[in-house]
């Protein structure tokens, strides 16, 4: 099977390790991965901030970059949600991309039909289900099923898991105090679990939570789910 990787702009620029992990994981599962180099950003930051007109060229670019592929894999719930839920308002060509774009856990569980991806991750981990994955995509228990099958991994319940971490795109800078308070509560909940690692499927949320944890000097590292699933005895995480 051949898929296109939509790495997303945040992963490209700030978290390339997540992109690399996604490629390694998919290839390990026998999937051939393409990276259409015309891709940049899905347009979500512009769209959610009220700049619909500025979003349109990015939608066109994304559609052109990926429309030749039957499967487009995105290691980000919120970017997948942008394409699936908001692209239809940009016309039929954009709408047609929606059903072919799958968030990473959807692709693994629904398309490949695997939950045990052969990963090894000897850490206590707690999982934060980001809002767009949880509510817009309805990822449900897919991330949990994948994590539970990872050897060595001890999954701990995150209190208040379904509550937003406070990132929210430009919300983080437009309402910095509320955003920071939400982030601090998320960090506190994660620390409370005793797991040293907070895992998520959206690096923009992890950028905020990890940055908050670091500022608060909390004993917490953040890691994208793709990196947990890519980790093996031979090639462990970090």
């Amino acid at each position, binding site marked *: 099977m051949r898929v296109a990787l939509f790495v997303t702009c945040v992963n*490209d620029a700030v978290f390339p390790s997540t992109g*690399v992990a996604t490629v390694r994981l998919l290839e390990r599962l026998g999937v051939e*991965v393409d*990276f259409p180099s015309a891709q940049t950003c899905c347009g979500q930051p512009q769209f959610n*901030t*009220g700049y619909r007109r500025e979003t349109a060229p990015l939608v066109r670019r994304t559609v052109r970059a990926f429309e030749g592929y039957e499967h487009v894999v995105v290691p980000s719930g919120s970017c997948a949600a942008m394409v699936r839920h908001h692209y239809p308002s940009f016309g039929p060509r954009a709408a047609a991309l929606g059903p072919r774009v799958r968030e990473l856990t959807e692709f693994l569980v629904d398309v490949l039909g695997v939950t045990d991806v052969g990963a090894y991750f000897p850490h206590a981990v707690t999982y934060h289900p980001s809002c767009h994955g949880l509510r817009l995509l309805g990822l449900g228990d897919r991330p949990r099923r994948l994590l539970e099958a990872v050897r060595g991994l001890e999954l701990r319940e995150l209190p208040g898991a379904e509550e937003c971490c406070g*990132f929210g795109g430009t919300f983080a800078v*437009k309402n910095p105090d*509320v955003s920071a308070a939400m982030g601090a509560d998320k960090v506190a909940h994660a620390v409370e679990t005793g797991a040293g690692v907070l895992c998520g499927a959206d690096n923009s949320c992890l950028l905020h939570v990890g*940055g908050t944890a670091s500022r608060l000097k909390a004993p917490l590292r953040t890691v994208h789910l793709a990196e947990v699933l890519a980790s093996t005895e031979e090639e462990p995480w970090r």
Partner: protein
Amino acid sequence: MSGTFLGMPSFPRAAREAVRDERLRRNLRHATHTIRDKRARAVAELDDWAELREAGKRIKDRTLRHLDTYLLELEERVTAAGGTVHWAEDAAEANRIVTGLVRATGEREVVKVKSMATQEIELNEALEEAGIRAYETDLAELIVQLGEDRPSHILVPAIHRNRTEIRDIFRAEMGRWGRPAPDGLTDEPAELAEAARLHLREKFLRARVGISGANFMVAETGTLVVVESEGNGRMCLTLPETLISVVGIEKVVPTWRDLEVFLQTLPRSSTAERMNPYTSTWTGTADGDGPDAFHLVLLDNGRTRALADETGRQALRCIRCSACLNVCPVYERAGGHAYGSVYPGPIGAVLTPQLRGTTSEIDASLPYASSLCGACYEVCPVAIDIPEVLVRLREEVAGRGGKGHRLEKAAMKAAGWVLDHPGALAAGERIAGAAGRLLPERLPGPGARQWTDHRDLPDLPAEPFRDWWRKNRP
């Protein structure tokens, strides 16, 4: 640089104060989390909740699509049943009508049932100017009125107060308005409720004019519905000789049968009860039972403006249950006052800018008072897609430019250009990566400062993903 970049106006400023108020944070957290879990259990009892939600949404949508027809039908039925219907385009007109009606009775005081519409039009202040004293009789409204405070929640306007603060307000203020608080009043909720009962009793018994809102108005029968808990509503609707109800035009539902949906979804969504203690329905006036004069004031006050917006009009489905406030992480931390309106929380953030427009600083900031997490939409019993409306309103605010948004628009355009040119993007990423290691912990400048005041930046990678790909998967 002022704090106005990226539209940094009133809501964020007010929220900053609230976030730092430890007691307020505790009160709000305690109250919202208590009701959140209870609501979830009350809703889970009904295995057809999704169908009730869909039905409620459709009924409201159809009503709004033919609002003129249903209002005329309502007017006809209320009039036929002995009531008088008035139409008010805005707050000033509604206040004029009500003040005139009270004056005509010769009374100088009125008792009030908790009503969002009368809060919205600031009726109490208008009555006060006319020399008429309005007594709020809902417990939370009483707390707000005695404390010379502002409401901070749709259902529980004094949610920002804990029991000890309430006791202190009752002890200090009840005597100025009537019967003082009992000696030795403690902060036990049952004792506080008893104090309110004693304080308001004399006012109910002598009241000649009652003022209410309504949760629903049934077009086919001309029936009004008030849903409440304490019995203060029944007192105000039943004992006075004159009843004046001020109701937003969007509160009409077509048929008596439609209540079967909302009387199931409203109590469970608001107080997490199978049914609230008291629901009163009345149609015009009834011989020998209750008021012999009934006036209905139908209020527009911006509702027709909201109705004209294809996306925004869904906010008019709202049945004022408050479920969205109780699950909102932003409301929980910012508190109700930060929203600068009687409608706080997620529904306020979409309703207020539509009713009042987005030209003032606070109103223009409300569409951004959300992380778009979607918890509000999930619990809404009439399926208002609040995040969708927020984004639509952000377009309105951003499109107009104005304070803070010109710079933001330029930044968005620049980012858009870079993102539309992958070569430039890659170059930028490489420079950022190289510079990343040299950055100080806290960055100056708009946007960056708001980020680094609270969070560390990650170590930027040596190379972007696209470079790794080119080297490793040639």
